[in-house]
């Protein structure tokens, strides 16, 4: 559906003082490759400045990449590089839908006109007539529960309604691809949560392939079919939310998404997917699909909720003894920080469990939940 190959985009950076010649180039995205399937909700996730928005704007045609290829539904939108005829379809010829972070609702138009605009500006003869426009716009407004506001000035709507209006404008032409640039970041936490589910429901009902850009990991995990985690202009890992969360491929992904305990170690034994990793606090048995030969330095990553903590000795492998050094009540969970020798591990437990600091405890690191990531 969407194919991105070797996409590179640089911006002109600041010229250091006293330096002659052209200003240096700063790479915003380097060699991004992505494949998105039809009907998918695909998320670009990463911290600010990771290139996710630049990637999205390149797909939209609002940004012109240096080289690479962008193809949507069999049509080449952009192609540039050595020895290839360059193609760059203008943004208004690509026929995509886009929802901006600021919604970009036109304040001088009514709700109806905002949504009708993409149909009204279609070339003469190609676009629908007035009655058809009215029917289609009202149908979309109906779906978004905005129909009774059709004649209102767009700026009179609440934040959540404006967000839905922006979405309506994006889907009115039934585009092959819908681009969403942090559409929920301007809303308060409660509304954001409600709209997240709303957005997911709509996307599934309409079956529109969507590219979603966000820096919010919770949003990414709950909305997406697949996620691409980006850092410094490069894709770090592509996978389903479960894969990304449960099997992070590197330190950055494990650290950026959720919280993780990182334990340095060295592979001492390997039988297929069964590993034994030597750490400062003892040997860890774990299972990983990563292919790492014995003797390699690695980092074992484990989520706080995948650890068991108890004041009594736990049966099974990977049980370490330690002392609770801090405790924090989070409402729906309790975080215990346990000092095991020189290593501190964070353990998340049910809110009913609460162990006094300074208590001697046993922690168990479940072998199935430990990921091996390369040591930096």
């Amino acid at each position, binding site marked *: 559906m969407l194919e991105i190959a070797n996409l590179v985009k640089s911006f002109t950076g600041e010229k250091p003082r006293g330096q002659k010649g052209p200003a240096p180039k700063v790479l915003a995205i380097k060699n991004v490759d992505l494949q998105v399937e039809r009907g998918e909700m695909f998320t670009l996730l990463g911290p600010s400045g990771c290139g996710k928005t630049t990637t999205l704007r390149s797909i*939209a045609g*609002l940004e012109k990449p240096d080289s690479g290829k962008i193809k949507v539904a069999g049509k080449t939108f952009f192609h540039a590089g050595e020895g290839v005829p360059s193609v760059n379809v203008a943004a*208004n010829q690509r026929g995509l839908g886009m929802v901006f972070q*600021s919604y*970009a609702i*036109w304040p*001088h138009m009514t709700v109806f006109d905002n949504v009708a605009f993409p149909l009204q500006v279609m070339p003469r003869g190609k676009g629908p007539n007035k009655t058809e426009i009215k029917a289609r716009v009202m149908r979309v407004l109906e779906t978004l529960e905005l129909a009774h506001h059709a004649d209102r000035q767009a700026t009179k709507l609440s934040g959540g309604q404006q967000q839905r209006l922006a979405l309506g404008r994006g889907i009115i032409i039934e585009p092959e691809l819908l681009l969403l640039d942090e559409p929920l970041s301007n809303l308060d936490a409660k509304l954001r949560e409600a709209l997240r589910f709303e957005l997911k429901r709509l996307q599934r009902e309409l079956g529109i392939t969507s590219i979603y850009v966000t820096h919010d990991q919770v949003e990414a995990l709950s909305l997406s079919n697949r996620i691409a985690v980006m850092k410094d202009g490069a894709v770090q890992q592509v996978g389903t939310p479960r894969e990304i969360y449960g099997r992070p491929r590197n330190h950055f992904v494990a650290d950026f998404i959720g919280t993780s305990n990182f334990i340095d170690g060295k592979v001492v034994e390997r039988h297929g997917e069964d590993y034994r990793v030597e750490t400062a606090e003892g040997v860890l048995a774990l299972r990983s699909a990563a292919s790492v030969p014995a003797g390699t330095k690695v980092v074992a990553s484990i989520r706080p909720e995948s650890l068991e903590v108890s004041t009594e000795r736990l049966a099974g492998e990977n049980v370490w003894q330690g002392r609770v050094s801090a405790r924090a009540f989070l409402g729906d969970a309790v975080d215990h920080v346990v000092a095991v020798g020189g290593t501190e591990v964070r353990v998340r437990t049910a809110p009913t469990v609460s162990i006094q600091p300074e208590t001697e405890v046993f922690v168990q690191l479940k072998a199935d939940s430990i990921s091996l990531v390369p040591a930096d």
Partner: protein
Amino acid sequence: MAVASWITVRTKLPGRELIDALTFVPMVIPGLIMGVALLSTYLWLDSHLGTGFYGTLWLLGIAYFTRYMPYGMRYAVTSQQQIGSELEESALMSGASWWQTFRRVLLPLLMPGLLSGWIYILVVSFRELSSSILLYTSGTEVLGILLWEQWENGSSVIVAAIGVLMVFTLIVLVSIAYKLGAKVGIQQD
């Protein structure tokens, strides 16, 4: 003016600063000098190309346009800077051509600013004397000239009368323009 401000603010066109700077030049030229320059330019055009600018109100119109362009441009640039680029980009993403975006999104949003610019220019043009005094002929005496002539003749009563009329006319014009501005631009609460 709106197009020029759009080029200055939005595009990365080489020479866009030059456009901005050029529209500013008339500001530093004294009115009398501007009058002389315009007079010689259009007299030359009239005699060489056969145009008929001299002695018409057109010439005065051109003079006011040239003199007060910097003000108009400032107003236009300021309003352009206040319009988020996403508002234009979203029109582009909706499939609108540049012209459609300009006419249906940009111009309505710029309108309040442009209108204020026009009102300002209208008011200062009404009172203009230094350039007009070189460019007028009998039949195209603008109000400023009329005032000047009457003052020269020593008819201070007429001067006072015209002055009062001018003030009232301007007040009415400005009020009408503001009313229009509120309707054309973004609806306020």
